Every structure is written in C-alpha cells, then in structure tokens.
C-alpha cells in the first residue's frame, strides 16, 4: 500500500516535470521565433535608393544626350512635371498626399556662366555660385512641408537655401486671412504693401518665401518675407483703450489721438507717436487661411503647432499666451484669428509637444541635391539642380 502510494507520487512528480519541460520548450521556441523576427523582420531603409531613383528619373526626363529637352521651358511641362516625367507621388493611402506624401522633388535651372573666375584646384562648393547665372526655370512637386522643414535645418549656401540671419524675436503673432484662399491672401497682402512670414493653408501646407511662387504669381511674391526680415503684419496697439502690451513701450496713437492704423507705412513717423513697430521688429507672423468665423481644420492647427513649436525652439520663445498672441492683441482694431480659433487646445497641445525643432522630427528625411551640366540646342549652357527629399514613413523604413 505504502509502495503503491510512493509509486503514484513519483508518477505525479514525473508528470509535473514533463509539463514543466513542455512549458519551457514552448517559451524557448517562442523566444527563438521572436528573436528571428526581430533580426530578420526589421525594415530596410530604402530612402537613399528612392532618392537616387527619383533624381535619376528626373535627370533622364530633363536631359537627353547632353541637351536639355525643349519642352522643359514650356508652361505645359512645368504644370505637368510629374506626369511628363512619369512620376507618381500619390502612392500612399493619404488623400491629402500633397502634404503627407514622403516625396518632394524640385528642379531649378540656372544659366551656366563659363566665363566666371577660374578656380584653382581644390576650390569646391564655396565658389560654386561664381558659375551660376540667372535662374531660368523652377519646377517642383510633392510634399512642400518636407522642403520647408529641410530648409529650416539647412544652412544657407548662397546657392540654394535661405538666409537664416537671426533677429531678436520673442513673439509669434497669429492672424487669419479673412478670405477663402491662400492666393487671395497673398495678393491682398502684397497689394496692401504688407508682408508676413508664413501662411498656412487649410490642408496644412506651409507657404514661405521660398515656395510662394508655387502658390501665386511672381509679382505677389513679396507678400512673404524670410524670418530674417521684419514683416509688416502685427500692426499697432491702442494704449488708450487696452492694457499696454509689455513689449510696447510708447503710445500708439497719432498726434490727433486716433489709432494709427498704418503706422508702419510712414517713412518718418513723428517721435513717440507710433510704437508698435516693436511688434513687427520682435515678432514672426503666421497667417491662417480662414474666413474668420469658421472652425479651423485639425490639419491646419496641427501644422501650426509644428511650425510654432519649431520657431519657438529656434528663438527660445516661451510657449505661453504672453508670447504667442493673436493679431487682435497687437492691434486693437483687429479681431483675428477670431473666436473660432481654439486657443485653449492649441496652447495645451503646443505645451505638451514642447519647443521641438521641425528638424528633429524630419531629421530622417533623406535629401539629395545633384547638379547636371547641360546645353540647349543653341549651345547655351545650363546647370540643372535636382533636389529630392524622401521623408520617413512606415512604408520605406
């Protein structure tokens, strides 16, 4: 009886041991499979090759046997650049691929000045501009936000890039366009002899001085100025009726006691009569395309958050309502960005994101910039500069 009990106990222990080993084997096998998945299942980074392929395709499209194709200078080609070069950027599932696709391509054609001062051996890119003549063609397509972000992180080369001389900026002023389109806003700002640093369209597209030509005729391009230039956008503040804004140190009314509505335009303003140039001097202005009485789309606000966050990181601007202001706070006769602007959620999301340079979120953008020397049939010399940007997405990385 005792022997039987011992045997059954031993059998039970063996069974437990067997189950234990099965469990261990399953765990080890699962871990091995997971390790194989981790090692072999990691994605390949194809952006470099994608950028090369894109650049090569554009190069092949634009030149043939040393000559730039005749159609390149026709408006039809410039309008149908992607189709004519057999490119299709709308490969993503995004409906708004112009702002979300991971591709951007730009072609700039310059005259080549072969009579430029000859270089000694070893001189390189620093003197490249000596051979660069007039710009004769600019074509671009793709996600313009990739370009904007890339330019913000790319130091000016004097050849392609922005002059990033920093001003002492401590305020960001948010406007609305009081109109339905970016084009209308650009025209209106230019016609009124005013200016702005950025315009954000309803779909989140950020329009800057560098890409304004894609959105408006050249004669209106002066509506947008680089951050290094003081824009005429913030207007004046009436110190009689409102609390004086901290960075505004003098009165803001003219000699008749009226609000100076166009003080920026005066070439020689009387002393102590106009103060609010301070706002323009120390601020960066952003226009949002909006009628002023309609809700702001999420994509537009998201783009604004990214841009403000980036600007704040570069100029060390605190992310609060004292430094990120509406136009109505700098001009007493203005109401924009209007009652529909979601200040609370905007500031909340902005502060939770923090001051983050767009550069850090687009540091993985693969950029390739190559040049081709080419001729036209008349023997004129050109430099074709091809810029390709391939951003990071789940599809290619």
């Amino acid at each position: 009886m005792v022997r039987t009990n011992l045997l059954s106990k031993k059998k039970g222990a063996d069974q437990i041991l067997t189950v234990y080993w099965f469990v261990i084997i399953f765990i080890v096998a699962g871990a091995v499979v997971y390790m194989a998945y981790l090692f072999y299942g990691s994605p390949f980074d194809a952006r470099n090759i994608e950028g090369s392929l894109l650049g090569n395709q554009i190069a092949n499209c634009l030149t043939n046997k040393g000559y730039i194709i005749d159609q390149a200078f026709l408006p039809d080609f410039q309008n149908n650049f992607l189709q004519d070069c057999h490119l299709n950027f709308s490969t993503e599932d995004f409906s708004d691929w112009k702002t979300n696709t991971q591709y951007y391509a730009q072609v700039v054609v310059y005259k080549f000045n072969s009579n430029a001062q000859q270089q000694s051996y070893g001189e390189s890119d620093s003197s490249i501009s000596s051979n660069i003549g007039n710009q004769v063609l600019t074509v671009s397509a793709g996600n313009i936000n990739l370009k904007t972000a890339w330019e913000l992180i790319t130091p000016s080369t004097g050849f392609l890039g922005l002059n990033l001389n920093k001003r002492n900026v401590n305020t960001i002023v948010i406007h609305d366009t009081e109109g339905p389109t970016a084009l209308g806003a650009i025209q209106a700002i230019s016609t009124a002899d005013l200016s702005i640093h950025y315009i954000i369209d309803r779909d989140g597209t950020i329009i800057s001085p560098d890409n304004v030509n894609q959105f408006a005729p050249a004669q209106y391009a002066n509506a947008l100025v680089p951050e290094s230039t003081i824009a005429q956008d913030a207007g004046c503040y009436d110190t009689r009726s409102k609390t004086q804004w901290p960075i505004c140190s003098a009165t803001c009314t003219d000699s008749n006691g009226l609000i100076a509505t166009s003080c920026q335009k005066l070439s020689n303003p009387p002393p102590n009569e106009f103060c609010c140039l301070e706002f323009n001097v120390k601020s960066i202005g952003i226009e949002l395309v909006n009628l002023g009485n309609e809700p702001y789309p999420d994509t537009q606000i998201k783009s604004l958050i990214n841009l403000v966050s980036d600007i704040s990181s570069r100029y060390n601007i605190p992310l609060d309502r004292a430094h990120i202001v509406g136009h109505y706070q700098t001009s007493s006769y203005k109401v924009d960005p209007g009652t529909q602007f979601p200040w609370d959620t905007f500031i909340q999301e902005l502060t939770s994101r923090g001051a983050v340079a767009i550069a850090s979120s687009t540091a993985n953008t693969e950029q390739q910039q190559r040049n081709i020397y080419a001729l036209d049939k008349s023997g004129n010399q050109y430099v074709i500069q091809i810029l390709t940007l391939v951003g990071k997405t789940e599809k290619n990385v």
Partner: protein
Amino acid sequence: MFNQNKRAQIAETTTWIVATLIIFVILIVTLFIASLMGHTKNLPQPLGADIFADKSLTAYLLTKGTNGIPIYTTISAEGQLNSFNGNLAKQIFLNFYSGFYHDRLYLGVLGQDNDYFNSGAISHKVFEPGFVFYSINVGNNKFVQFTALPWPQ
C-alpha cells in the same frame, strides 16, 4: 526520514527554480541582443554609376569653344585638354561633384595625367570595383574618361 525527504524536495525545487531563472535570463539577454542587431538596415547604393556626371560629361564634350568647334573634336585632334576645355572641365566637375568625390575625381584622356586635375593614381583606374568610370570615344583612338572614387558611405 520525513525531514530528510522534505530537505531533498526543497533542494530539488530550488534547483529547478534556479534553472528556470537562468533559462529566462539567457532568453532575455539573447532577445536584447537580437533587438540590437535587428535595427533598420540600409540598402547599399549601387556602386560605379553616377548618371549626373555621365550626362554632364556628354554635355561637356558637346560644348563648343570660342572657335565654334566642339570640345570632343579639339581633344581628338590635340590628344589632351587645353586651357579652355581644361578649365571648363574644372568649373563643371570640381564644382558640381567634388562634394561626392572631393579630390578623388579625374577627367582627361584615358590613362593620361593632365594639368587640370590632381589625378594621382585615379587617371589609371579603369573598371576597378568602387570607382565611377565613364569613357567616351572622341575619335582618333582617343577616349575621354571620367573617373571618380566616392567617399565611403
């Protein structure tokens, strides 16, 4: 007897617990190593091709000098670069491609050094792995070659 059995059971159980822990520790370590080794992989760029330099070389040879004669004809006749086409070659190829090759690029007549490019041994590199190489027959059994060695990526 009872105590001895109990002690043996405790020892055996402890052994298994320790063994199990060791197995788990080894698994975690190897998983961690696998996750480190399994990061995003870069696809290597194909070597030996630079379509931009190739196209520029063609356009360069088609460029006419002040006498209206294309560069390829001049090189074919003279057998070497002259001050016009040599300096133009520098303006094009050093300016546009030195960022990729720095001083490791050469343009000239196949196999010959010239006064315009610091060829070193690059002018004699033909079809070697890793080198970008293009040559165009300009006549009279003369070949204009572009040779460059990209910086390692």
